[in-house]
């Protein structure tokens, strides 16, 4: 996933679209908006962006899961099997992005990149709804995909690179 911070207006549509698509209870969220303000008035900079599970290559949540409920599926998506999750919370602690939470029903929940939609050829709900079209989703292994081209041609960053997790969400800056 690639997110263009130059276009994001921080409207939170991605948050509410995720909630209605994935039945996330009100009061919880799988994605969220951050706002960073730098400088002093009137020389100010603002960065708005949508954050979620980074679906890391080296995912600490998967490594620390005692039951195997947290796992990586084909395509590099990190998922949680609710029925196998004992709700120990180790993964919540291990995630440098604070992307996981305990669902009121006990299991740990987080972004799935809308895995159920992908199988149907649809984009994740957040990407499909974004009014600024600042989110892109595709195959990073294919050098000709839109996301690969964006990363090739635009300045970008990942979050908490020092954690060594090799995240799969990239931010254009």
């Amino acid at each position, binding site marked *: 996933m690639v997110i263009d911070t*130059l*276009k994001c*207006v*921080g*409207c*939170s*549509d991605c*948050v*509410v*679209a995720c*909630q*209605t*698509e*994935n*039945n*996330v*209870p*009100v*009061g919880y*969220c799988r994605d969220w908006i951050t706002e960073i*303000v730098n*400088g*002093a*008035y*009137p020389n*100010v*900079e*603002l960065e*708005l962006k949508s954050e979620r599970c980074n679906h890391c290559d080296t995912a600490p949540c998967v490594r620390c899961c005692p039951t195997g409920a947290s796992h990586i599926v084909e395509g590099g998506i990190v*998922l*949680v*099997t*609710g*029925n196998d999750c004992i709700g120990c919370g180790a993964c919540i602690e291990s995630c440098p992005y604070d992307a996981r939470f305990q*669902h009121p*029903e*006990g*299991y740990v*929940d*987080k972004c*799935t990149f809308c*895995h*159920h939609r992908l*199988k*149907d050829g649809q984009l994740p709900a957040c990407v*499909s*709804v*974004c*009014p*600024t*079209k*600042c989110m892109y989703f595709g195959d990073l292994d294919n050098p000709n995909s839109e996301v690969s081209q964006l990363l090739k041609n635009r300045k970008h960053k990942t979050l908490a690179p020092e954690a060594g997790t090799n995240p799969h969400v990239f931010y254009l800056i």
Partner: protein
Amino acid sequence: MTTSRRKFIKISALGLGGLATVSTVYNMFGGNSYLDAVVKQNIANKFKRSATYCEVCFWKCAAWAYSDDEGNIQKIIGNDDDSHCNGRLCPRGTGGVGMYSDEDRLKTPLIRTIIDGEETFREASWEEALDLIASKFKGIKETYGAESIALLKHGSPGKHLEHLFNAFGSDTIGEPAYAQCRGPRETGFKLTFGSWVGSPEPTDIRDTKCLVLIGSHIGENMHNSQVQEMSDAIDNGATIITVDPRFSTAASKSQHWLPIKPGTDIALMLAWMHVLIEENLYDKKYIDKYALGFNELKEHVSTFTPEWAYSITTIKPEEIRRTARAMAYASPATIIHPGRHVVWYGDDTQRARAMAILNALLGSWGRRGGFYFKESLKLPKFPHPEYPKPKWTWKEVSSKYPLAEMGVTTEIIRASIPGENDEYPVKAWMVAGTNLTKSIPNKRLLEKAIESLDFMVVIDTMPMDVTGYADVVLPECTYLERYDEIRSATNREPSIAIRIPAVKPKYDSKPAWWIAKQIGEKMGLADQFAYDDYKEVIEYQLKELGTSLEELEQIGVKNYPRKSGPLYLNENDPYTFFTPSGKIELYSQELKNLGFDPMPVFTKHPEPEQGYYRLNYGRAPMHTFSRTANNPNLNDLMKENTLWVNPKVARIIGLKTGQEVWLKNQDEIISSFAIKVRVTERTGFDAVYMVHGFGHQNKKLSRANGKGINDTELISRVAIDPIMGGTGMRGNFVTILTENPHKTI
């Protein structure tokens, strides 16, 4: 008249229990986040898809509502074929689910009564409530005339009630959308180009090379297709210039941010005109061909140099010149955006005129990347007997303001107070879809008018604060539960969209068309409502248009080819503007004849005293007016507003982020509730800022009650535009109280 007669009743006064059996939408898939995706998909396939258009704001994006067998709205997704949303709803549209599921909704009709000496509401049947309304309206009609019954409205319900009012002989109708919002720009642009800006604005942002936003914060106001097009413009490398004392989201996307001193926009615009003319950067060919009064304008702005404007606006002369040149370089693909909520300091028609004149100098009206010529489809009228002719209408009530294009709400409100306007006395109100305590400034005047009324009906989906003043409250069902008018959109291409019920009305709520018809029938006007179901009206209109309800149920939106000619001016053909002269009027003889300035001039506006800060307000992308504060989905995104304070100011007063404070304005009005401070570099030193629409009084709004401050209650000083009656609301100053002023000792 006793002042306690219309004491504000909090709707929770009498029990409404036993009705709130909300089935849980959540957890229906069990405790598994992904493995049962297949199951989920199977359920998804069972969802019924119903065509609708959104009513959470006025943009009216066409959408699909997905509902399950149990009558729950699962999700709402934009219609791909709709030019208002292009398949992407904004957060409010996506969160429209919450308008339906909100357990605090109005559930039954309510009638004001006295129990044990206390004013309260009791639940009533529709029959009883409607009988009461019809008999009261008939009584007032006989005594004072039908004209004395006024309709104050917003959005879709208004249309049905307007028909009822016209049918019984009243055209005393107003909506805050004019005098409290976009009125000045409609009048200002009409004076210049002969045409309203209208909604959606015909700004060709998609193809623009330079977008100029003056006090307009696109991205925080989530006018869907405009936000989408601004994003396209960013991709295309367009220059964005934002004029705003606050570092808005749009400002953060801009190459040029001009942190102007509040209240000085006209001075900046006059200096821009000066530079465009002085440096010969204006579109000479366009002006020669289409405009009138250039020499007068040239003479008028000759002394308004950037150096002159610097002393007023605090914007450096070289920045004024640089931005003027950027606009000229991109012209005619440059947009001086007219804005939307444009009631600032009382000279707002002139401010809009300045914007229109700049657009004319840049040659952008009727040009690609500037403003396109919009077009809409005229809907066939469902036959009904001719309306009786009222003896007076909103026009007479608003006649103090010669160029008012719609009913001036604040004048209708004033005419409701005995002695204020005895020629056109207003005795009863029907209020639909507008929460007056948050849409109308000067609460004292509003409450005085309400106390003077003989009768007041409020129609809403939610127990908004205004319902507490009513004699009768009627629960309207939400847009997801009803048929409504066909949406005929004004856009690049005409289109229609339909709204059909996705689910049955929850509780004992009813659609506005049904309410209008019932009252009409009880007033002996059955022939004005010759249908059992509004569906028949839609079917008739669609048949006349050569389509059918069956087709629209399948597609939701139907786009039509243009008939009125090209999207832009054809420079080889003559063009007649709809102004008196047929030309773009840089100099307005019409204004001159009425005794107003024929060209905009800068007027100095009051400044805050020591210790006071200008109260600025705006929008958040996930909320509409005060309508959505209690919506469970949208409340979850933003629960309350905060008071933006510059860190240097915060240091002087000793404020920290998260600290609760109260505000007192220049007229000693103290906010009802506290607001949390947000210390941020995004705002300057002489103003504080908050998002509009919070601080709800009604306890029945369980999520929104008491959260944040209602900016409108602190707006007691109103600068009225003498041209069209707009209520300038940005001239109020507040001081920050760190101790609770409501604490009783």
